């Protein structure tokens, strides 16, 4: 039996990101293409960061999910170009992220402020929704997150930084 791209996509929507389980790999914008040829599904994925340690796990999870759906011939292809950007994260993904307690990335215009000691401001606290927040560190619990703190409710929180 052959599958359409749309069917494969709907299967991949069930594969979650190993580090942020509320997001699927489609929400994250990691899946770049699906090529069907001779019953072989070639899933083209791209890493968020060069050293993203989740890539091997994501490839494995995709194979397991498709196997579960009856697709045995699966190939995982990694591409680096064009480089992944948070602009590819779906709107529903951003909402899920927020509900999970991680501030979603702003649009790419709010990318890293290259000016020294200057920070991206106005990041909304996912708990109390105040925008009176401050950067604690550009580097957080995973490569894709920065550490912020809310000046009002005082809670520290992760911000999925623009990339």
């Amino acid at each position: 039996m052959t599958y359409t791209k749309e069917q494969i996509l709907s299967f991949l929507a069930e594969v979650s990101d190993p580090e942020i389980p509320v997001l699927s790999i489609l929400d994250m914008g990691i899946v770049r293409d699906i090529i069907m040829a001779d019953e072989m599904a070639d899933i083209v994925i791209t890493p968020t960061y060069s050293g993203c340690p989740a890539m091997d796990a994501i490839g494995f999870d995709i194979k397991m999910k498709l196997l579960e759906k009856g697709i045995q011939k699966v190939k995982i292809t990694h591409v680096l170009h064009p480089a992944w950007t948070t602009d590819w994260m779906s709107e529903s993904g951003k909402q899920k992220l927020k509900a999970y307690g991680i501030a979603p990335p702003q649009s790419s215009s709010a990318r890293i402020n290259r000016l020294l000691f200057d920070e991206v401001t106005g990041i909304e606290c996912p708990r109390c929704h105040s925008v009176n927040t401050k950067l604690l560190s550009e580097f957080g619990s995973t490569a894709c997150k920065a550490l912020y703190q809310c000046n009002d409710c005082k809670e520290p929180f992760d911000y999925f930084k623009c990339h």
Partner: protein
Amino acid sequence: MNLKNLYHSFLLHLADSSLIIAQRNGECCAHGPILEQDIAITNITLDLLGQSRNFYQYAAQRLNEANGSSETEDTLAYHRGERDFKNFLLCELPNGDWAQTITRQFLFSCFQQLLFEKLSKSNDEHLAAIANKSLKEIQYHVKWSSEWVIRLGDGTEESHERMKKAIDYLWPYTGEMFMPATYDIINLEDLKSIWLNKVEAVLQEATLSVPANTFMHSGGKSGVHTEHLGFLLAEMQYLQRTYPGAEW
């Protein structure tokens, strides 16, 4: 390993520099001065390790196509000896104190940013893709390390002294970045003045200065290293040397 093709050597040089400084930074894991900075330096380590994997994978592919060999990213990282490594001497120098660790990162990241901007325009699409991907991460490394140089240089008497010592120690290892090896494909002389301006601007704000007319070490790019690399490799390669191909 047949390295008659100079391009292979260039790819390995890029991979080795990223890997070796990553391995050094990785030593800070759980030993950083405070938790946030421990996390920062290990995040940077991960980026650099990722870069080196991309370069090794590509080098392995090109080597195998040319020589019919069966190299992988792992054989290149774990099964080559000290004289085969082409990283900058700067990358292998010990961490010392925090001043030395962040100054080494600062000097290297500023160089990497300029070099990768050039490589991102390469006709080799795969090399350009790796460089482009890395550049997004490197701008964070440059910003973070520049801020630390200023914070410590223009900090207390003690931190200023330590920064001064770190710069005096590391500076003689910066000249090598601009000395062309047979395999270099970028005109490094062009990068030198831009790099110097960039570094000097930050040092000035940090109330520090560039040491005058120092002797410059070289050799790393052609496999002649300081005594530090052997120890680093012994630790990094031990498991794969003892149990080749071990996985877990």
